[in-house]
């Protein structure tokens, strides 16, 4: 379960205003909204990379807000995040990148880690690239490696920031399917930010629409399309099928 209680956040000016929602365990939230509306900020609040100015964020039974750095560190072992521009460590090979969260966590032998890395790479259909440098990959491949790194430790909470940005419709739909498969298998609670409403709505259980710093809509996907605010946002963006 992911819970936001009256969360407000801003830097020079307010970005998020009094956001409240709760996402049940094991479900997937598709977060949409215009550029610069604060979707990425919301994701960073979810994994404790930012502290809200007011309100409370909790993951599972534990509050994320107001915790010590040591406690946050422990909680983050239950979080996987695929960043917007992939954030792959460019001084490590692809394989080391994916293994990094496991190594930091400790407790597994090198052989076990290698097996897990290979398994993860196979899931994202890239079984042969463990020894390449991230800079040698295309945009779509990097996105998939970032997914693999986010999921290697089978986290109960998964956050994906625009995993299909700038990709063509076919590659996008493949990436959405990978996310869906993995979170179903691990039973993870998942939040995905995307502009690609068509691909996203096929996979998510809940839809959240951010507008002017507030949650303009939050509810099950099947009701979303009939909701006037969501329909207005996605109007003209529905793909021809």
């Amino acid at each position, binding site marked *: 379960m992911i819970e936001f209680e009256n969360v407000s956040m801003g830097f020079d000016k307010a970005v998020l205003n009094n956001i409240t929602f709760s996402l049940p365990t094991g479900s997937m939230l598709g977060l949409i909204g215009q550029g610069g509306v604060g979707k990425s900020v919301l994701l*960073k609040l979810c*994994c404790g*990379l930012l502290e809200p100015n007011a309100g409370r964020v909790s993951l599972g039974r534990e509050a994320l807000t107001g915790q010590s750095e040591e406690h946050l*560190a422990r909680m*983050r*072992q239950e*979080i996987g*995040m695929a*960043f*917007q*521009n*992939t*954030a*792959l*460590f*460019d001084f490590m090979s692809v394989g080391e990148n994916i293994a*990094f*969260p496991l*190594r*930091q*966590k400790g407790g597994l032998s090198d052989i076990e880690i290698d097996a897990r890395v290979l398994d993860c790479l196979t899931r994202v259909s890239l079984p042969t690239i463990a020894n390449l440098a991230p800079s040698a990959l295309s945009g779509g491949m990097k996105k998939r490696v970032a997914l693999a*790194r986010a999921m290697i430790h089978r986290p109960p909470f998964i956050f994906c920031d625009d995993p299909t940005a700038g990709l063509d419709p076919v590659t996008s739909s493949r990436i959405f399917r990978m996310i869906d498969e993995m979170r179903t298998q691990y039973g993870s609670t998942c939040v995905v930010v995307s502009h690609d409403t068509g691909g996203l709505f096929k996979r998510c259980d809940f839809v959240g629409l951010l507008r002017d710093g507030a949650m303009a809509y939050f509810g099950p996907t099947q009701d979303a399309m009939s909701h006037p605010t969501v329909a207005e946002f996605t109007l003209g963006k529905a793909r021809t099928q």
Partner: protein
Amino acid sequence: MSAQTRVFLGNMAFVIKKMMGRKKTDRASRLRFWSALNDVGINSVFFIVITLGFVGTIMMLHGGYQAARIIGDSNLVGPQILPLMIRQLGPTLAGLMVATRVGTGMAARIGSMVVTEQVDALRLSNACPVNYLITPSWHAALVMVPILSIFGITAAFFSGMLTAYVVFETAPGVYADWSFVSGLDAVEALIKSISFGAVIPLIAGTCGLSTHGGSAGVGRATTNAVVLSSLAVIILDFFIGALILGLR
């Protein structure tokens, strides 16, 4: 004080606090230290030897021409410039070169990791960015800047000797007259280079971590790193020099 300065100072306090804190040493952290030693030390040696080599020659040329003009004897120049090389030009210019090469390198690397969210990814994987990215270079610079200064002074010494011999026909034995070099000069050099080694990675790392705003931000951070750390070297040089002069 501008908001930016406040953020920068806050970050620096955070970096110092993290660096002073207890941390585990394992195989990976030792590896990072070795690679930092390699980066700060081995990769800078060539650069410092070349630049300080030029400095030795330039000093000898200046000194020689002046001495020939005023006293008519350039044989006295060697003993006069040796203490200057040891206590002043060697450590300071080596420090400036480390600020230039290592300082900007660190700021560039860390800054680009910040804007590409790699630092966030480190934090999410439970690795402290300060311990991971700055501490190894800090330790390495503490060890390496004095050693690099020695290399630099040696290079300046020999290039000066060569210049003295070729241009002014001063015998190497006459040039290498250590009678004016005192223990205090060596102490001054050591204090200077250790303090340069301590501040350069600190400033450069903080500049890197304070980066914001894409490619332009990385450029800004790198520029700030070289300006601030060079300035720190010059200011420290002034105060340490004044302190030691008071002791003479």
